[in-house]
Every structure is written in C-alpha cells, then in structure tokens.
C-alpha cells in the first residue's frame, strides 16, 4: 500500500489534520461509556487490514511530517534521546526490530538488504540510502537508537531487566504526554510511574511488572492509553510546558472543537533477543474533537467518558482547565442514544 504523506505541522500554524481515512482508523480507546485504568494488555498480533494494529509499527500519512517535527525537537534539545552506556546491545536490537519490521510491512517505502553484518537500508519517504555494518557504531551517523527512531513514528524506551525490575535506561522521547526522559532515565518501573494517581493503590503496577518480567521473545503485547492536548502539538514535554501550558486556559466553546484533541497512545512491548531488554514503544495519534464527532458513536461516548471521569484522573491527565467546556461542546453530539460495545466506529 503506498501512502500519501502529508505536509503539515505540529507547531506554529498547526496545519495537522486527519484525512477521512485516518479518522476512521483512529484508535479510539473507549470500549464503554466510562473509563477507569486497567492493565488492558493484549497480544500485539496483526489486526484488521488497514488498521493501526495491522503491522508491528504503524506508518501512516503523518509519517514524514512527524519525523520532521522530531528532528526539530532534537535540534533544540538533544537530551530527548539518551542511552546509558550499558544499553548499546539493546540499541542494536531495537534498530534491527524497526528496520526489519518496516521493510517487511511497507515494502513500497522501505527496503533492507542484509549480507551477514553488511546492511543496506533504504527509506524512500525520507530519502535515505545507507550502507553500514550492524554492530559497528562507527558506520552510523549517530547511535543506533537515535538513527532508527528518527525514522519511525512514536517514542521508544529501552528497559533493562535486572534485580526483578525493569529500568528505563535509554529512550527517544519527543512525542510524550508530559513526562521527561532526562528526568526519568535510570528509574525503575514503579518509580517512573510514581506520579500516576490511584493505580499504585490498585496494585496495577505490581501486576503489570510481573507480567512484563515474563514477556517472551516473539510474543509482543500492546495496550492503549489516552489524554487530551490543545492543538495538535506532539511535543508536550515538561521541558516546554512553560511554552505550551497556557494553551490549556485558552479554550472556549468557540474554539474547543477545533483546538482540543484526543490524544491516544498505542503502546507496544517486545522482548529483545540479544540484550534481553524490553522495548516499549509509545505511538501517538491525535484527532480534533470536530473530526472525532464525524463518527457519531465516538462523539456520544467521549462525552459520556469525560462527563463521568474521576476527579483524580481529570487532574492527572491535565484536563482541569477545559474539562467543563469540552463536556459542554460534546453534549451537542450526545443525543442519549445507546452506543455499541467495543471501540470501533459502528
């Protein structure tokens, strides 16, 4: 399938928008009319053709634009991609996973030819044609995690498994919903989830950790997470919060439909072969409310989810300042009719 890549921005004039096809394949995360956290992990197996879960890594119409935005973020702040010294093997594992997956799943856009350790990689949308030696850092323009993830949508964290825990020891994090790689680097699973309210008391992280410690090669898993963002801004980092924070207070009934976006993260986890590390990918999808309500079921459901959302979650997800106006705007699209179970548009 050849994609048409859009020229659009995630900053300044925010020209980002979803095509009708992109709207219909949006990973709407709510299967019922209310929301509470759960571990909600399922096997990361191939989903329906054309869906965001069809392939290991989803490449969509926003690919080129997202990679350009990533390049800008990194230029302004190189600390968004870091790796502790002991994670080099895991970095190569990740590079292999990304390149083999993209070449296999999008042969129109990517190609990988391997002869022993001599690799030849082609990325047509980004105009890259590069030969290198797998395992030899001298032949790459930058570290393996940076090189590979500059060409793949979503954030990536490499977790070292030791001492019965997972440690965030490397990552590329430029499309995050308000957390800092530089700050969290070196923390373990329970520590980096420290700020999440309620979930610890529910024992969620202990169960999730136990499950992930036993994650096996060849059996990746995935789950969805969500929040909301004003403007289609990918870089909602704490580092830049003093620049984007005020957007939250600038919403009114007039602009909330166009400016407020549902932000869904498709998270997937793989066990890596050589390093035994786990890669945690966090792929971000944005949809403005006005686009979302073109799917009537989603309009009704999102209204109900937001209206009944627990206060702690409203606070933790940063929705406080516009929660009321979002609910009010969405109420126009909720006629009280029943909604079907499941996340799909029908």
């Amino acid at each position, binding site marked *: 399938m050849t994609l048409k890549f859009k020229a659009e921005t995630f900053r300044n004039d925010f020209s980002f928008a979803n095509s009708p096809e992109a709207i219909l394949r949006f990973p709407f995360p709510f299967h019922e009319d209310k929301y509470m956290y759960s571990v909600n992990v399922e096997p990361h197996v191939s989903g329906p053709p054309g869906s965001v879960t069809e392939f290991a890594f989803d490449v969509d119409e926003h690919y080129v634009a997202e990679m350009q935005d990533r390049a800008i973020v990194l230029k302004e702040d190189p*600390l968004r991609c870091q790796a502790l010294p002991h994670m080099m093997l895991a970095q190569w594992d990740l590079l292999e996973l990304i390149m083999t997956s993209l070449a296999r799943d999008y042969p129109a856009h990517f190609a990988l030819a391997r002869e022993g350790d001599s690799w030849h990689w082609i990325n047509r949308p980004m105009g890259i044609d590069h030969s290198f030696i797998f395992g030899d850092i001298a032949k790459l323009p930058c570290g393996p995690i940076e090189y590979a993830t500059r060409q793949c949508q979503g954030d990536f964290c490499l977790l070292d498994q030791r*001492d019965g825990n997972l440690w965030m020891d490397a990552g590329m994090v430029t499309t995050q919903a308000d957390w*800092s790689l*530089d*700050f*969290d*680097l*070196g*923390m373990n699973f*329970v*520590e*980096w*989830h*420290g*700020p999440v*309210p*309620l979930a*610890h*008391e529910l024992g969620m992280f202990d169960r999730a950790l136990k499950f992930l410690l036993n994650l096996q090669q060849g059996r990746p898993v995935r789950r969805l997470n969500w929040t909301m963002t004003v403007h289609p801004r990918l870089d909602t980092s*704490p*580092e*830049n*919060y*003093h*620049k*984007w*924070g*005020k957007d*939250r*207070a600038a919403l009114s009934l007039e602009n909330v439909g166009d400016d407020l976006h549902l932000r869904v993260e498709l998270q997937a986890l793989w066990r890596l072969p050589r390093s035994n590390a786990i890669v945690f990918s966090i792929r971000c999808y944005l949809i403005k409310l006005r686009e979302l309500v073109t799917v009537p079921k989603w309009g009704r459901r999102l209204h109900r989810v937001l209206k009944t959302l627990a206060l*702690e979650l409203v*606070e*933790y997800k940063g929705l406080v*300042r516009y929660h009321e106006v979002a609910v009010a705007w969405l109420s126009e699209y909720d006629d009280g009719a029943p909604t079907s179970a499941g996340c799909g548009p029908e």
Partner: protein
Amino acid sequence: MSVGRIKSRPIYKGLVPDASAKRHLIVAEGEGAEAVAALEAKASYGFLERAAIFYVVSGARGQEHKSRLEALGADVFYSFPSIPTLLFRLNGVLTTATMGVRLYVSGTEGFIGQVLQAALSHGIDHQCVLTEHHGSLARRVQCIHCKGFTEMVKTNLVKCEHCGITLLVRDHYSRRLGAFMGVSADAETPGELPPSQENFP
C-alpha cells in the same frame, strides 16, 4: 497532589552495621552525625577498625558533632568544610575501592542524593547503600526547563537560580540527578501563582 509518598522517592531505611563488610565507608553531614553515633553504638567489636568516617561540619552543632565523631576512634576520620570538598575526596577513595566495601550515608536528602550519584558512578548499586535522613527537609530541585539545580529549597515555590522561572517543587524525584523536579508554576495562567508555603523546613 500526592497520595502518600510518591514511589520515585527513596525510602531512607536507616543505618545498621553490616557485619560482613570488609570496609565501612561512613559519610555524613550536619545532623547526620547522630546516625553515625547510633551506628557505632549498634556495631560489634572491630567495626571501627575497618571504618572510615567522612564528615561535613555544618549547622549550629557542627563542631560539637565533629569532636564527637573524631573521638569514636575509627580507622580514619576526615572532616570537610562543605559537601563538594567531601565529594571530591570520596570520589578519589571510591576509584580504588574494592568489592566488600559498604557505604553508609546520613544527612539531608540533597546530600544523600549527591553521595549516591558518586557511588553510582563508581559501580555501586544504589540498593546496597545504607541511608538515613537527618536535618532539614529542604530539597535539591532541578528546573525541568533549563536543567539548572537550585539547592536547599524549603518552599513549594522557588525561583530557578539559573533561568528565573518560578517553579513548583514537585514530589517526583530522580536518583540519577539527585533532585526533585521543578516545573513552571504558572504556565497555564501566567502571573497567577499558588500561595507559597514552607513545606520542607
């Protein structure tokens, strides 16, 4: 907004003598001397012969503590006028230290954090360092925006010493950086700040 103690914050379990260690590196600051004295009292015969005490003389009772610790009779006793001078010497010692060394740290959270950073850089896993908090609750804060550190912060709001942004001091703590996160306190409504309170005296 914190429900109980945030999970990223270390728990300072207290100093107890490790009878199997071949060498005890005891590092303290200010009121942390109390923990060292208590440690010695719990220790068995021969503990002090294998102990090196490093002490930063600070606070109103600094000199008094210094004399007391010196009198314990450890194998080696060093006193320092400041945390950076202690860290300088500690780094030198850790460069040639061998397995079998046990590190004990006591003082303010900022001090403990910096000693742990030194330990980590020399290959000591933080989980095997014994720690005990004494003295002020004042926090070492890193401005998430400019990455600059501001020391000994007692209030929930602080002006970053580097870039000037007024920061809200959060509970999320980084062991790698040895600091709490400081985030712009009025990013959403510029000029409107929450009331300042002395939360960490």
